[in-house]
């Protein structure tokens, strides 16, 4: 893989790339991993607490409580995004705030809020999925592929 990249650069460019890499401040990987772990774990903890609340006080069963839990997490994320706080959180948390479903909601809310200046239809409507689109597209295609594999291997469902 590395040699493929090298082939596209001249010798001078390759030398320069090495110089640039030697100067590049290294990402604080361990610090980022720890922060992502703590933030991501904490968000999941909040999700667990919300789910327990829906089960014990909302009358949902374990399986059905997933839906309102996700909806509440999304609402919380949209609120934090609206307050201008989510992006500050993300600089600290990194993947810890991007990977949970709250990150998905933040990507949609931030795009919607940003593009309101281009109008509700073309701006908000048209650009809302700017960042979340790939997740939905590839998730759907992957689910379709898994479905096909299941069909072929297990022969599918009832008749």
């Amino acid at each position, binding site marked *: 893989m590395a040699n493929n990249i090298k082939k596209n650069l001249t010798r001078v460019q*390759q030398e*320069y*790339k090495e110089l640039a890499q030697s100067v590049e*401040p290294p990402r604080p990987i361990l610090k980022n991993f720890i922060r992502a772990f703590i933030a991501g774990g904490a968000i999941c903890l909040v999700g667990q607490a919300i789910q327990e609340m829906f089960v014990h006080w909302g009358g949902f069963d374990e399986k059905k409580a997933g839906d309102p839990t996700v909806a509440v997490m999304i609402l919380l994320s949209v609120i934090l995004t609206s307050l*201008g706080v989510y*992006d500050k959180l993300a600089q600290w948390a990194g*993947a810890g705030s*991007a990977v949970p479903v709250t990150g998905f909601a933040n990507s949609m809310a931030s795009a919607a809020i*940003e593009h309101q200046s281009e109008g509700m239809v073309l701006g908000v409507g048209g650009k809302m999925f700017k960042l979340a689109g790939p997740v939905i597209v590839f998730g759907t295609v992957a689910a379709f592929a898994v479905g096909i594999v299941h069909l072929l291997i297990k022969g599918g469902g009832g008749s």
Partner: protein
Amino acid sequence: MLKGHQSWLFENKPFIRSTATVVGPFEGRGPLAKDFDIVHGESMMGQKSWEKAEKVLIEEAAKLAIENAGLTKEQVQFYIGGDLMNQIISSSFAARTLSIPYIGVFGACSTSMESLALAANLVNSGSAKFVLAGTCSHDSSAEKQFRYPTEYGSQKPPTAQYTVTGAGAAVVSTEGDGPVVTSATIGRVIDMGIKDPFNMGAAMAPAAVDTIEAHVRDLGIEPGYYDLIVTGDLAKVGYEIACKLFKKHNFPIEQTEYSDCGMMIYDYETQMVQAGASGCGCSAVVTYGHLLNRMRRGELKRILVVATGALLSPISFQQGESIPCIAHAVSIEAGREIL
């Protein structure tokens, strides 16, 4: 007059008759805040969008520069401007307000010196009496266009730079007085294969070094001729690379003080800007505000300002292209009122 391969020597001594700098609140919290004419309290500036706010920045800077020159806008022959927005709308809409015959240029973050060089050339050659050169940038509009919506939670790496929210404008003329634009060197596009839009410093450093070397070669001088050579927005990473490149090329940069506007405008301790500042506004406000103030106080006699730009677009990056860069150099020397 053409000097060497790609430089101009301005024998008729065009002056920077006046300047104006307008910045946002974040820049107002930095170490150079006192050198800026207007510091806005909030970055939306009472407008409905970031793009409209950026237009306000350059309009204010342009109007103030003309006012500081003791002129009316009807007296200015040409306005040369550009910015980072698609189709350079900030400058174009400001030109609409100013109603001055307009030459739009795009040099990304090198626009400040690109426009100043052209303005000096027009005035020097007798093609104009008064020319307005200006540029602007806005952090939020740049993020929205080139990277992510401003409220999106993405984690910036240590090589990332913060776009300056600011506009700088200058009126150039042979009438009046002020710091003299003595020469300029137009840069070539240099691309060393860097693809990471979060590491502009590494992409731009080779262009800066190329233009500085071309400048001294064309003019037949040594870097020690200048009290200060300053690049536009290489920031920490690009600056270090440039220093290494100078050493590698045996270029005697140590004869002079070498600095970078992107490292001067923010306080690294209190402001989270990773590697430093970038944006068209960076070199513009630091040069027209801070550096020329130092020159007016007699602290600097001859400086070379080398604004650096990364000529990528969001699409070029997505299509796997590397980042071509350019740097334009303008030498400014203390005017009659100082010497």
